Every structure is written in structure tokens, then in C-alpha cells.
């Protein structure tokens, strides 16, 4: 029984990284994926914010799952998620004001990120605490890694740098379009195609 449960936890965690990757497989959270991946730092900050909100909301939803009324569950999920997004927003304003300014309206928009309410509905409201926590970390990490992967490509081609460190050769001519929405769509589309190719879909 313990072996079956352990495998299940591993499978739950790994699902968020590949089989059920929020961006490449579930196509959730497209708005921040396109908007904040012009550079790695805001992408990483957004990813960590989503992990925090996912973890807290999954824990709270899991703990109150047996008390939830079916017709009020979405309202309760939204209430829970918005509380932790507000806390996250206050944290960034207090301790990372430059990132708060860079991310602008996209932190409050985490409230309507379908990934978080989806995990609350699909996992946290139906499973125990450990599974919910593992699912939150798996999905959050998958989302963060995806955002960072996109951001690395875009920032490298748009500026030749990552985290202000020159990576590309000196004579490299930056592709300014990669920092614009057109670059976001093209990069995401190509990465989606690559993932489908690898998965042989």
C-alpha cells in the first residue's frame, strides 16, 4: 500500500513537469506565459508567485473539501486564491518593488489563472493533503520551468544577455522582435510544436 502511494506521489509530481505540463499540454496560463517571458527574472518571479499561490490554495481547499457545498465551491476557490494572490502582491511591493513594477497587473491576474482554479477543482478538492501539496509543487514547478525556458530563448535572442550577463558573442545583432508580443507567440508556437514532436502527437 505504501509502495503504491509512493509511486502515485511520484507520478503526481512528474505529471506537472511533462505529461500534464500546464503550458505545453494543458494550455493554461497563456496570458502570463506570453506577457512576462521577455526576460528571465520576471518569468522566474511569476513562476515562484504561482507556486506560492498554488501551494497555499491547494492546502486550504484540501482542508475544507469535506465542508464545501457543490454550488458554492467555485466561489470558495476564488475567495481562497484571491487572498493568497493579494498576500503575494503585498510581498512583492514590500520586498521586490522593481519586480512588482515590472510585472504590473500580471500579479493580480494570477487570480484568474485557470491553472490554479483547475488544480483546486481537479485535485485539491478530491484528494488528501500530501497529494494536494505534491500536485501543487509539480504543477507550479512545471509552469515555472516552462516560463523560464521561453524567457531564456527570448531574452537571449532579444538582448544577447541573461540576467545582465553577456552570453552571445560581441558582434551578435539582437533580434528586437523577440522582446515584443510577436516574439512571444512565435517562441511559444515553436516550443509547442517541438513538444508535440517529441511526444509524437
Amino acid at each position, binding site marked *: 500500500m505504501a509502495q503504491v502511494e509512493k509511486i502515485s506521489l511520484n507520478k503526481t509530481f512528474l505529471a506537472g513537469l511533462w505529461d500534464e505540463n500546464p503550458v505545453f499540454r494543458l494550455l493554461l496560463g497563456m496570458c502570463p506565459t506570453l506577457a512576462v517571458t521577455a526576460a528571465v527574472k520576471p518569468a522566474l518571479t511569476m513562476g515562484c508567485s504561482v507556486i506560492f499561490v498554488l501551494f497555499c490554495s491547494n492546502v486550504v481547499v484540501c482542508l*475544507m473539501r469535506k465542508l464545501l457545498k457543490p454550488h458554492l465551491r467555485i466561489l470558495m476557490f476564488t*475567495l481562497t486564491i484571491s487572498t493568497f494572490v493579494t498576500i503575494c502582491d503585498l*510581498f512583492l511591493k514590500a520586498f521586490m*518593488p522593481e519586480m512588482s513594477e515590472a510585472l504590473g497587473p500580471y500579479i493580480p491576474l494570477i487570480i484568474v489563472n485557470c491553472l490554479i482554479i483547475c488544480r483546486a477543482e481537479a485535485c485539491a478538492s478530491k484528494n488528501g493533503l500530501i497529494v494536494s501539496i505534491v500536485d501543487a509543487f509539480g504543477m507550479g514547478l512545471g509552469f515555472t520551468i516552462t516560463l523560464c525556458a521561453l524567457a531564456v530563448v527570448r531574452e537571449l535572442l532579444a538582448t544577447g544577455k541573461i540576467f545582465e550577463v553577456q552570453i552571445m558573442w560581441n558582434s551578435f545583432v539582437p533580434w528586437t522582435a523577440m522582446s515584443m508580443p510577436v516574439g512571444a507567440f512565435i517562441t511559444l508556437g515553436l516550443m509547442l510544436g517541438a513538444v508535440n514532436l517529441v511526444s509524437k502527437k
Partner: protein
Amino acid sequence: MLKHITHFVKQSWLLVVASFAFGLLIAFTNAAWRPKIDANAAAKFSTKVSGLLPSAKNFEPITGKFQIDEKLTTEVYQARNDMGQLVGFAFAAQGPGYDKIEIVIAVNEKCSKLMGYGVLVCNETPGFGDAIKSDVSEWYEQFIDVVTAQPLKLVKTGDVDDKDPEIVAITGATISSQGVVDIFNNYMPKIKEQLLQKGMIQE
């Protein structure tokens, strides 16, 4: 009647308790971190003002808040150089765009000319309205050295190089552009009037 009340309580007690608990959590978090957030805002204001009036070394608040309307007040700072000479005034101003826009405005020592503005708070549409944040654009350059005697007027087309009260709007961001112009028009006459009353400037 009692049956209805009991049914209502059974259905909604979790929602009410959760709302109360989450509200308390946010209130405590806000109380704990508000001093740090306010300190960051003050530091940002200082940095912006120093950039707008580079010759200023000291910024002293003028005694008494300046009344803008029934609800709005602002604090005006007099900027002085290292010889103690007045080089300008600076104050925070706010108004609606798509969302709230908060800027810091700097004027010269006679309050006759704009020295520029810096954005403190802006949640305008990324890629469109948030262009008001840029201080190296044709839009921003229109505000430098403009006389404060006349109200600013937003136009859709025109010459951006002319230093006149006609401000050419950012393409695709009329509401945000109008928001900034309205802030100037709302604050400048009242700030000027009260500076005259306090004897800080001459007519």
C-alpha cells in the same frame, strides 16, 4: 421563517467564516508590510524627483497640505541647490486613466515652466497606455519646458516638437494620454494659486 434562516446559515456558514478569516489574514499582512511598502514609495518619489531636478540637493516640504479638491490634497516640496537657492517645486499628483495614474510633477522655481514628470503608479495597458512611463519618448519630451500659464490640450495629430500646450496623444492610448493631461490641468492651477498665496512665487 426560522426554517429559511437555518437553511441559509447551513448553506453559507463556511463562506462567511472563510471571508472573515481571509479578511483578517490580509489585514494583518498589510499592517505588517505597509511601512516597508510606504518606505519604497517614498524612495521612488525621491529618486524620480532627483532625476527631474538634477541641480537640487535638498527637498523640503512646504508647511501645510495643498488642497486640490474636496478630497484630494498633496504635499509640495521646494527643491534647493547646495547654495540654498530655490531651483523648483515638486509634488505628487494622481488621476484616472484606465486605472489610477500617479505621477510626480516638477516645475521651475517660478512655477512658470514644466521640468517634466515621473510615473509612480501606473497599471495602464501594457504596450499601449504604459508608454506614459517612458521618459525617453516623443510623448514625454512634449512636457519639457511647456509653460504652465495655459491648460494643456490633448490632440490626436500635430507636431510633437512644438513646445506648446497642445500634447499629441500616444497612438492607441488616448485614455491614458488624456489621463496624464487631465492630471496636469487639475493640479497646476491650484498649486500655482496656493504658492502665490503663500508668497513662494511672484505673479
